[in-house]
């Protein structure tokens, strides 16, 4: 079979995968793809936010009673930690664009640390206490305060469900950042340009934004 020379061979950019014509098409494709993924995640969390909004509107008092047991201090600490991690993530992308690998790695590492701190605070300080106080939904649930125990349990169902799902996304982010750091360290060709870091950054900012909504909705809810 004849193999006429393909224009693709004319300028061989080894950053470009075979299905793309040029670097620009590849970059655009990856960015659009990542945004599609984020849109999809928004719908994913969005459905939960809808459910929460509906129930909160229905059971305002009980939800307020329940939320008073949440520790605003730890919530605020976590919010700060996550915002800081978003900043360091943005810095990492910046250094990646400038090809300053050492600084990029340092920023990625700091982001990683913040993410781990977030999970630690959540699990050790917040959730552990909830387990101790029997606020976790299920057969162990026991509520001694005022308000309808049934609706309080509903609040905690949503609280653990949503913050838990968010936590899973933070964990996924930790793993992905870790892999990115490893591949950058080993100079894998696929991470040689800044786009993978930018995509991870986009994901991380999304995870942060979800928390920015979760925090006031759960912790700061007024009566």
């Amino acid at each position: 079979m004849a193999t006429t020379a393909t224009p693709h061979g004319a300028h061989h950019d080894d950053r470009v995968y075979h299905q793309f014509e040029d670097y620009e098409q590849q970059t655009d494709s990856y960015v659009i793809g990542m945004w599609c993924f984020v849109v999809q995640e928004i719908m994913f969390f969005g459905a939960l936010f809808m459910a929460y909004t509906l129930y909160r509107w229905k059971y305002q008092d009980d939800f307020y009673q329940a939320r008073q047991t949440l520790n605003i201090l730890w919530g605020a600490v976590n919010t700060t930690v996550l915002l800081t991690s978003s900043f360091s993530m943005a810095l990492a992308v910046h250094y990646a664009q400038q090809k300053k690998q050492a600084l990029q790695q340092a920023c990625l590492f700091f982001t990683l640390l913040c993410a781990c701190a977030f999970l630690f605070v959540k699990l050790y300080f917040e959730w552990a206490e909830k387990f101790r106080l029997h606020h976790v939904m299920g057969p162990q649930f026991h509520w001694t305060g005022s308000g309808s125990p049934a609706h309080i349990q509903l609040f905690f169902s949503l609280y653990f469900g949503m913050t838990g799902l968010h936590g899973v996304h933070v964990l996924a982010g930790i793993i992905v950042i870790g892999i990115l750091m490893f591949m950058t360290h080993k100079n894998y060709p696929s991470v040689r340009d800044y786009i993978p870091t930018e995509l991870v950054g986009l994901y991380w900012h999304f995870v942060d934004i979800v928390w920015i909504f979760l925090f006031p909705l759960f912790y700061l809810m007024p009566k």
Partner: protein
Amino acid sequence: MSTKAISQEETSHIAERKNYLNNGSSISSWLLTFDHKRIAFMYLISISFFFLIGAIAAGIVRLELVSPNGVMLENETFNKMFSAHGITMVFFFLVPSIPATLGNFLLPIMVGARDLAFPRMNLLSWYLYVIAGILLLLAVFMGGVDTGWTFYTPFSSLYSKTQVTLAVSAAFLAGFSSILTGINFIVTVHKMRCPGMTWDRLPLFVWAMYATSLIMILGTPVVAITLLLVAFERVFSIGVFSPELGGDPVLFQHMFWFYSHPAVYIMVLPGMGVISEIMAAFSRKRVFGYHFVAYSSLAIAALGFIVWGHHMFVSSQSMYQGIVFSLVSFLVAVPSAIKVFNWTATMYKGNIDLSTPMLYALGFLGLFVIGGLTGLYLACIGTDVHLTGTYFVVAHFHFVMVGGSVTAFLGGLHFWWPKMFGRMYPEFWGKMAALITFVGFIVTFMPQFILGFLGMPRRYHLYYFAGAEFQPYHIMSTAGSSVLAVGLLMPALYLTWSLKYGEPASRNPFHAVGLEWTTQSPPPTENFDTPPVVTWEAYDYGEMEAHEAHLDEAELEEGGEAKKEVEKL
């Protein structure tokens, strides 16, 4: 117009050419492939497998229903059978079928690209589908699910003692397989069109896949989280839908149908895309009203998101909600009607070739019109109150899903089979199967409209209360289903047979216009020897003759050179 006779020389030349099928034959070259065409083939095998499972379950259900007192099953087992049928068919066949097989194979070629935007994600999506399928099989072997594919709470979350968690996890994963396909398609259509391929030169199949992909990424996550919540309720007591905790079981229905209604458009839009292609090719004419057909796909996708409450007219949502949903449901019928009329007009002053794909397309027209119009009975609340929850609904959705989607899938499979596998299927058996399927389908599902009107509820194992009234129709329906089974089995047999023994296909056996017909049958791994530059409009049948002649020449040249290579050896 039959396929051109191919000479002996061309046969051996074609058979020896390097294409995506023979480019590597180890297991890992298949299981670790990034080639969208190989992935499409693997999808074809897997969805056919699940179709078989779903069909067997359906057969058992139909057998059981010949007697008002059942035949051989317990109530619970019957419930598990129709649940398995629904879950398998909806999540593991209808949603992926055309997008993951024909879409995966054709989309890059139709836009003139070498592959999809994200080939590795494409492979991941197949693996997610397979793992999801394994979870489903596990659920079935460990006792099955009895909730129906709709998993209504609180039955599914608190009362059912079957493998609900496994089943919803399977659907959850299958959903992500679908989402990844959608992302891939959207980016490919936006960014990977070859030079000259503007949006309004795109084949209507691509428009349909694009609209489908939009629904996939916007709708699927909602059902994913809904099903996840059901699993969480069973495993972690997160009682979001539990009335004991003040939760609202009807909220589940809202969240579920918010996806599952658009999902039916995921199932039918690709089929409509296929029909556009077949109507054009076998009328040898541009599709009438190209822009209307293209935009109607987008309109269906958009409107499809705001009608979900028509599944819930009697669910205790407010009367006003119901009326609004009813109004919008009538609106969403209009773009589908526009398509049907445009396809019909395509035939006007065309050159109609009644080959197998066209028979499927014409069957689609008739059955989809009936299916779509019977939706009006259900969109109209006054009649829906009587008909919801009965066999009328079952008949309606089988008309659109089987008479529509499956018929279109089979039509598309036959149309592009020569392209995909380089082999022709036996035309006589193709026509036979199409006719048998059509007849069997009508005999199976027409009586069910009457059953529904008479009041026979769906998901009923026993119907002894009104046995005399209902039984004749059930017997008719079961009889029809055996004919339908034969009609569906036939392509499975002769298409598989054709892979080895079918007549080798030429580049463009149906003389159709489209980028996929400019490349070899089967295509090389890179799809095109040289990336195309498009200078013609879609379905440019007028200009086609000159272009085809040019391509035939080029091919003969190639063939001549290859022959010389062979002769040297």
